[in-house]
């Protein structure tokens, strides 16, 4: 093919089921993932509100608690075990079904093929299977609420022996924990299918002229995230199978002998190593942090350049930083285990490698600020969320430098300092990336603009809100407030910290309520929003060359040809202050 020639356009199938349910179209699948994530994020957030309420009102009876959980909240007062099961499910649902799903599988599915000029993902059937497998995993996970004993209480990390020894360790550790493990195994399979698609699509389906170094940074982050998911979820799958066998087949991979659990001695197992689980889990778990955050970094880079009307500062440095974050992400899992007992030399090695991740992270932050510097910044809602991402990433990153040092981590590890840290950097930073992406790509996905006024109100409430929720946690951690406790009333020194918790709970209620503004904006704009032009942000990448929403095969049978890099803004001598990637080479000869 030597020119952008017109081929026969492919049309979407007509039936409702094949068009919207079992669709092979990456755009429909991307939206399916997005809405699965939207459901999950509100479910996860509701659980966190219940937790925040219980922490500051541990003895207040709430009648509908009693109706929802007749055993675990008899009389309307939550048991500590119920609190732990809410915590487990909050973490699991948020990490797997929101942070892993939306930035990569949602937005990545929708926009990776368009941004690299492909008609679809490399393996559409696999793509569809990947979504429905994820859906099944979510069903199985949520089912854990409804079985005898309820949801598991071993946290999203499912540390044995608690997660391995079965029902004697508490309610939820029977069938609930089994379902949790089965769901995670199914999810691993879905992620592997997704990773295969993302990698093959990026490597082989780029259109003419779309060299690797001309890909938008979003595509780079989706690629590296797919590689991390591929390697990480494979290990989690293996570990999950072993843990499940410990529970149902009587093996002893992770369970040692002679454990005394709830006044019973564990006699059926011997010789296993709970630390082995931690190693396997965190070999997945740390890269998982980057799976959650890398796509947000890509989206932020894309937006900062677009809304500052400047090229991204140091494109190549950004690419190498993404690659080194991905690589180093696999070498630092031990920093989650300083408290688990570790040779101090190993701890030092993990600590040094952890600090080393600060280098590419700082490069990215520096380049973001460099991109903004002297730019003509447009403070649209999408841009505000991208700036919020940078802010949260820096705040969350700084506390990571404390936690990466074994001497400090020994103190902080089981305190709220850690909760504050990972919510900032992995939770809300990634969520801000998703909000930014939603506002930025909504016009392309639905052909209408979102409401800017509602968007800005939502942004400011959320931005101030999340800082109000999570900043005090660092103070609480320094003051020695342990995490995972369901109440603080019976410990004298913690009693003095309860007013801080009350403030955080109120901040959480307000911030959560503010999310209704987002929902209203999202669904209202889908139907009634102002019709969107083809390229409302005057951006350069390929998705802005096609109608909104894009046709079934993205380019209506035309094969795009790329002549420019993705961030050609304010090029001296150019007609406009941006050059589309598909603009003729003569607009500017470099690129």
């Amino acid at each position, binding site marked *: 093919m*030597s020119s952008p020639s017109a081929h026969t356009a492919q049309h979407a199938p007509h039936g409702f089921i094949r068009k919207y349910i079992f669709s092979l179209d990456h755009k429909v699948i991307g939206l399916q993932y997005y809405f699965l994530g939207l459901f999950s994020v509100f479910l996860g957030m509701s659980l966190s509100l219940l937790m925040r309420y219980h922490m500051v009102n541990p003895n207040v009876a709430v009648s509908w608690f009693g109706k929802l959980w007749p055993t675990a909240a008899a009389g309307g007062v939550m048991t500590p075990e119920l609190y732990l099961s809410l915590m487990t499910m909050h973490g699991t649902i948020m990490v797997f079904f929101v942070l892993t799903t939306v930035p990569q599988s949602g937005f990545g599915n929708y926009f990776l093929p368009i941004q690299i000029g492909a008609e679809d993902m*490399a*393996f559409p059937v696999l793509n569809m299977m990947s979504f429905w497998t994820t859906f099944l995993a979510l069903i199985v996970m949520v089912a854990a609420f409804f079985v005898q004993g309820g949801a598991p209480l071993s946290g999203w990390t499912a540390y044995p022996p608690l997660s391995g020894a079965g029902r004697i360790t508490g309610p939820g550790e029977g069938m609930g924990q089994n379902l949790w493990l089965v769901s995670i195994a199914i999810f691993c399979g879905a992620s592997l299918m997704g990773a295969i698609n993302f990698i093959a699509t990026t490597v082989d389906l780029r259109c003419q002229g779309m060299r690797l170094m001309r890909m938008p940074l979003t595509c780079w982050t989706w690629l590296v995230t797919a590689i991390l998911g591929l390697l990480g979820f494979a290990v989690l799958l293996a*570990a999950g199978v072993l843990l499940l066998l410990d529970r149902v087949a009587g093996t002893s*991979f992770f369970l040692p002998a002679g454990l005394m659990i709830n006044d019973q001695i564990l006699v059926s197992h011997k*010789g296993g190593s709970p630390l082995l689980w931690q*190693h396997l889990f965190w070999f997945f778990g740390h890269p998982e942090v980057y799976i959650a955050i890398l796509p947000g970094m890509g989206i932020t880079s894309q937006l900062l350049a677009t809304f500052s009307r400047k090229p991204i500062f140091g494109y190549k440095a950004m690419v190498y930083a993404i690659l080194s974050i991905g690589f180093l992400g696999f070498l630092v899992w031990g920093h989650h285990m300083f408290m688990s007992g570790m040779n101090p030399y190993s701890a030092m090695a993990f600590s040094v490698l952890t600090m080393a991740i600060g280098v590419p992270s700082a490069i990215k932050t520096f380049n973001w600020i460099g991109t903004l510097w002297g730019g003509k910044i447009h403070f649209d809602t999408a841009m505000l969320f991208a700036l919020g991402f940078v802010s949260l990433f820096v705040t969350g990153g700084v506390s990571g430098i404390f936690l990466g040092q074994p001497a400090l981590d020994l103190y902080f590890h089981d305190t709220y300092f850690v909760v504050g840290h990972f919510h900032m950097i992995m939770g809300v930073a990634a969520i801000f990336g998703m909000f930014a992406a939603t506002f930025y790509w909504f016009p392309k996905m639905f052909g209408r603009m979102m409401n800017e006024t509602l968007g800005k109100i939502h942004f400011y409430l959320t931005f101030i809100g999340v800082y109000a929720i999570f900043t005090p946690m660092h103070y609480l951690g320094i003051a020695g407030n342990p995490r995972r406790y369901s109440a603080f009333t019976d410990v004298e020194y913690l009693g003095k910290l309860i007013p801080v918790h009350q403030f955080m709970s109120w901040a959480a209620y307000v911030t959560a309520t503010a999310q209704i503004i987002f929902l209203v904006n999202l669904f209202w704009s889908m139907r009634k929003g102002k019709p969107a032009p083809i390229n409302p942000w*005057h951006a350069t990448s390929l998705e802005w060359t096609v109608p909104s929403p894009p046709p079934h095969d993205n380019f209506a049978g035309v094969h795009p040809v790329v002549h420019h890099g993705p961030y050609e803004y304010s090029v001296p001598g150019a007609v406009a202050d941006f050059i589309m990637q598909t603009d003729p*080479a003569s607009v500017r000869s470099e690129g």
Partner: protein
Amino acid sequence: MGMPASLTHDTIHRPPPPPPPIDHGWGGGGGGSDGRGADRRASFTGLFVLLAASTMVFAAFTSAFVVRRGLSDDWASMSKPPILFVNTVVLLVSSFLLDLSRRALKAGDRSKFNLWWTAATGLGILFLLGQAVAWRQLSAAGVYMATNPSSSFFYVLTAAHAFHLLGGVSALVYVDVQALRLRLGPAKRTAIDVTAIFWHFLDGLWVYLMVLFYVWG
């Protein structure tokens, strides 16, 4: 956004772009998703990514194996059923036949291709049956999954391998059915090559597992 009205997307998008220079860079050199070339490349990429994932699964099992064996004092070496060696030979021969059949296809000899491919498929199924016999013999000897960590790992690793092999056998049968129904067009060559490479991988994986069982198990 406050952009001057004249600087719209449409104004700079005319005239249509001239033919681009031929790009010999890595990827992005055309093809896109329009031709079979890209599909074939993507199939191979997908295959190798899948192999990487499978390798990671078995690497994780291996590291658990090594750690579990080294950390505890309850590891007892188990006696393995000798049929495993027969199974190994069956699997190796099936891999060899698969390559014979590919060579036959290259030489244009379709009937030989069908013969060797069918034989390889049969041996693949035979291997699975042989593994089932090995498990039966073990359980008859009182060696179950929970008997000892060595037997736990034996069952887990052989089952994980067999699970992969089920996928491989399905692919072999698919190609075989296509071949016997004379539907072996050029598009199916990719399926043949991908299946064969996957099968060789499973073959190598099995040899690795045998070494693991007999040296450390």
